């Protein structure tokens, strides 16, 4: 028991460093990319753009219908056969972004459609075009409505980054595996890894609460 605790304490700086230097940037990068994908894909569907709309549907169908782990290994182990080689790190980020983008696109589409159409009409009537109306009026409202669901996606992405271990990315989980293999303290190390993920997600939950307050300012009945 003492030995297990000692191993946990010894490995903590190493694991936390991996978390901060790998898990966190991977999450931030891939989630930012996925947001760009989600906004574009959802707007294409919302505006019913011909052809592009079918492509968007196909993308969502394909990505949501296949496991993230399988997508990772296809890109990393499969694509080199076609001459496409990307580093493990960037493979992970791109695959995570594409996968998360598909889910968030659907979240955002629902939120866009929930914004009353009168808001769009009012935007047109003050002389704005479609893009301006979306950017200044509809998207901010949709984003606010989608925020809890998008936070869900972000939090699950933090944990999904552990899948990158399967394509040789030395992130936090893989580092844990190695330490556990060396010390034979499987329970202690994996619980420790789990706790660090929990810590990250707790911070995100706290951030979500703070940000929701800011986003909700125009929903407060009382003026400040």
């Amino acid at each position, binding site marked *: 028991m003492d030995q297990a605790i000692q191993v946990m304490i010894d490995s903590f700086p190493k694991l936390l460093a991996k978390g901060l230097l790998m898990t966190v940037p991977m999450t931030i990068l891939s989630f930012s990319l996925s947001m760009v994908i989600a906004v574009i894909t959802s707007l294409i569907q919302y505006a019913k753009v011909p052809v592009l709309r079918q492509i968007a549907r196909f993308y969502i169908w394909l990505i949501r219908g296949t496991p993230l782990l399988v997508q990772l290994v296809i890109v990393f182990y499969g694509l080199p056969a076609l001459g496409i080689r990307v580093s493990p790190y960037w493979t992970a980020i791109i695959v995570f972004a594409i996968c998360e983008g598909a889910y968030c696109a659907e979240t955002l589409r629902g939120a866009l459609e929930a914004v*009353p159409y*009168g*808001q769009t*009409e*009012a*935007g*047109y*009537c*003050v*002389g*704005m*075009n479609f893009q*301006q109306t979306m950017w*200044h*009026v509809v998207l*901010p*409202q949709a984003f*606010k409505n989608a925020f809890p669901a998008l936070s869900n996606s972000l939090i699950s992405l933090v944990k999904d980054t552990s899948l990158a271990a399967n394509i040789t990315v030395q992130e936090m989980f893989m580092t844990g595996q190695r330490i556990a293999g060396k010390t034979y303290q499987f329970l202690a190390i994996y619980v420790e890894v789990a706790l660090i993920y929990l810590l990250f997600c707790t911070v995100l939950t706290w951030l979500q609460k703070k940000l929701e307050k800011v986003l909700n*300012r*125009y*929903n*407060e*009945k*009382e*003026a400040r």
Partner: protein
Amino acid sequence: MAVLEVKDLHKQFGQTEILRGIDLSVNKGDVTSIIGPSGSGKTTFLRCLNFLESADKGTMQFDCMTLDMPAVTKKQILEIHKRTAFVFQNYNLFANKTALQNVTQGLITVRKMKRKDAEEVGMKMLKRVGMDDRASYYPIQLSGGQQQRVAIARALAGDPDIIYFDEPTSALDPELIGEVLKVMQSLASEGLTMLVVTHEMSFARDVSAHTIFMEGGKIVEEGPSKELFAHPSKQRTEEFIRRIEK
């Protein structure tokens, strides 16, 4: 001089004919009211004029522009939107913007004004409708009447050639109608060109110079308001006015 002239406007929703050939001419500085029973096509007519609905047939002369309404281009619609304004029945203020931001949004994004200048204009417009003390409030924090006054300020901001009002008081509590009508009355006296779909007979009769009575997608009768209300020439008009004024 006519700022707006429409000829033979038709509109169908599926198999239902909503508008069956409407002609309209609005002179600069005139206030024109459109009255009529529910389902007569008043609102659809107004929405067609601002291309919120696409007309199936009809021509429009707006200032120097001549448009075949079904073949209108996006660019022309944008041009029309820049020179007109629309006040909705349910206000449609931008929910994520304060009262002042609602007024300045178009000035900044469309007219490319500097934020500071736009805010100056915005405050002036809010003052005109008596809402300058609520500039930093969000729509949800305002009463219906206050929201509609902000919506009118937003409409005024772009200095439009004509303002369309779609039943601006119909969603309001009876006690709030007065404040909105008062604002509209003062705009009328300032010489703004207004086209107003309304159920407020007193507004149509006393404020607007010209009244149009619509039913079944057609104009039944039109004329100077005082005359139309005092001596309607069609029996249907008389019935409607008598019933609604009771």
